[in-house]
């Protein structure tokens, strides 16, 4: 064994090289987007992940608890489906209310020439409707399996087995569970991509509350939670309000469920309201996701 006194200068030299790489990496975020090791690791990660999921399944309990778990999962899926349906009905109600106001404005101002337009392209609901109505139409989403997770506990990324050759591009929305927003594509390699999860501290998404139509920004927390902030004090927030993407900025489709208000943490003295959000997606159990590659009707 070598004692430090006998060590060569190789370690300090490589540390110096690492320092230069760090400076280059921080000054150029797009450095090495096609890391060949990522491409080499992807098939191995896929195999290991499948094996690990199988082992985790075996050790998760007895057959009775597995039956109960299956039943519970089924009910959870059903509950989420009903929540989504409820969300869509409430959204339709709110939209219809807005259209009624616009119509009233048009009726009250007959001298104006008026053209109706949507703020942004259609969301996942429209995509799924379009797919159900016309199964032969080109796909608007790509299903992918989660094959890797972030090795650092200070950021929240996933690696999925779909990349540039599958049509994945940076910024695309990624949904999991019952079409709840999981994150967006941050880095694309040839056969795999990195997904920046909503719960990453660097993630920020514009949202709207379905009930009150209040707008805000959902940001990730370092403890893996979600928080909404930048909500005006004049806007109403109540526990269990459903939070969906607003589509502002055009990066993400509208109406993707983000979660529900869990508890309000701000006081009246603060400039903006803040609240903790219960995510719509269980980020610890994401195994398959859907990448939204386009939205029907989007320009």
């Amino acid at each position, binding site marked *: 064994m070598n004692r430090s006194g006998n*060590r060569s200068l190789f370690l300090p030299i490589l540390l110096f090289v690492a320092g230069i790489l760090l400076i*280059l990496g921080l000054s150029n975020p797009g450095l090495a987007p096609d890391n060949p090791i990522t491409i080499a690791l992807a098939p191995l990660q896929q195999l290991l992940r499948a094996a690990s999921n199988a082992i985790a399944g075996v050790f998760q309990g007895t057959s009775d608890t597995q039956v109960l778990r299956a039943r519970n999962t089924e009910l959870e899926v059903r509950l989420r489906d009903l929540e989504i349906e409820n969300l869509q009905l409430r959204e339709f109600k709110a939209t219809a209310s807005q259209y009624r106001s616009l119509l009233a404005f048009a009726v009250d101002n007959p001298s104006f020439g008026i053209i109706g337009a949507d703020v942004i392209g259609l969301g996942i609901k429209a995509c799924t409707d379009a797919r159900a109505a016309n199964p032969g139409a080109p796909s608007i989403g790509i299903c992918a399996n989660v094959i890797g997770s972030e090795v*650092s*506990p200070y950021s929240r990324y996933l690696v999925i087995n779909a990349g540039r050759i599958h049509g994945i591009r940076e910024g695309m929305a990624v949904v999991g569970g019952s079409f709840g927003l999981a994150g967006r594509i941050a880095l694309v390699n040839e056969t795999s991509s990195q997904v920046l999860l909503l719960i*990453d501290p660097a993630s920020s998404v514009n949202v709207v509350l379905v009930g009150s139509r209040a707008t805000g920004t959902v940001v990730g927390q370092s403890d893996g939670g979600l928080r909404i902030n930048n909500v005006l004090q004049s806007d109403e927030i109540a526990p269990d309000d459903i939070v969906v993407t607003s589509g502002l900025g055009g990066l993400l489709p509208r109406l993707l469920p983000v979660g529900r208000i869990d508890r309000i943490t701000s006081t009246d003295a603060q400039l903006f309201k803040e609240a903790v959000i219960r995510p719509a997606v269980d980020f610890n159990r994401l195994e398959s996701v859907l990448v939204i590659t386009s939205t029907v009707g989007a320009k």
Partner: protein
Amino acid sequence: MRRYLVPILIVLVTCAIESSFLPPLFRSAWRPSVTLVVASIWASLTDTDGAIAVFAGGIAMEAASGLPFGINIFALMLGNGVAALVDRAPIPSALFRATNWVAVTTLVYHLAITGIQTLRGVEIDLANATTAVIIPLLLFNPLLAVPTFFGVRALLPRLRRATRLT
């Protein structure tokens, strides 16, 4: 040549295990840093090939990480650099020195990443990071280093013999 290639391949595989195999089994805030442990043990037992193993481990972690390129490599190299300095302490047992090396590398690696992330303006809850990640890993990584130490130590003579023969 094998004495350099084998540790590189091993750290690549351990990184794939760490990013793919372990997450479904460890759903807490931390999970075993097998890449860090294997690379650090290699660096504690050898000289040039250990440094190369650490560098390769850093590159492999970059491949599985969403952090800006260079942070994992630098933090891992810095951790092992500091561990090499601390290794001058007169600890008579090779095993204790190896576990001490891993503990120092773990601590410096996490401090370096939290420091760099804070400098980048990313909000890190240091209290939560310390209690939920750093302290558990400071306990678990040295434990994981014990079997790793014996495994790497058993492998090294074979690699060197092969190198001499070729």
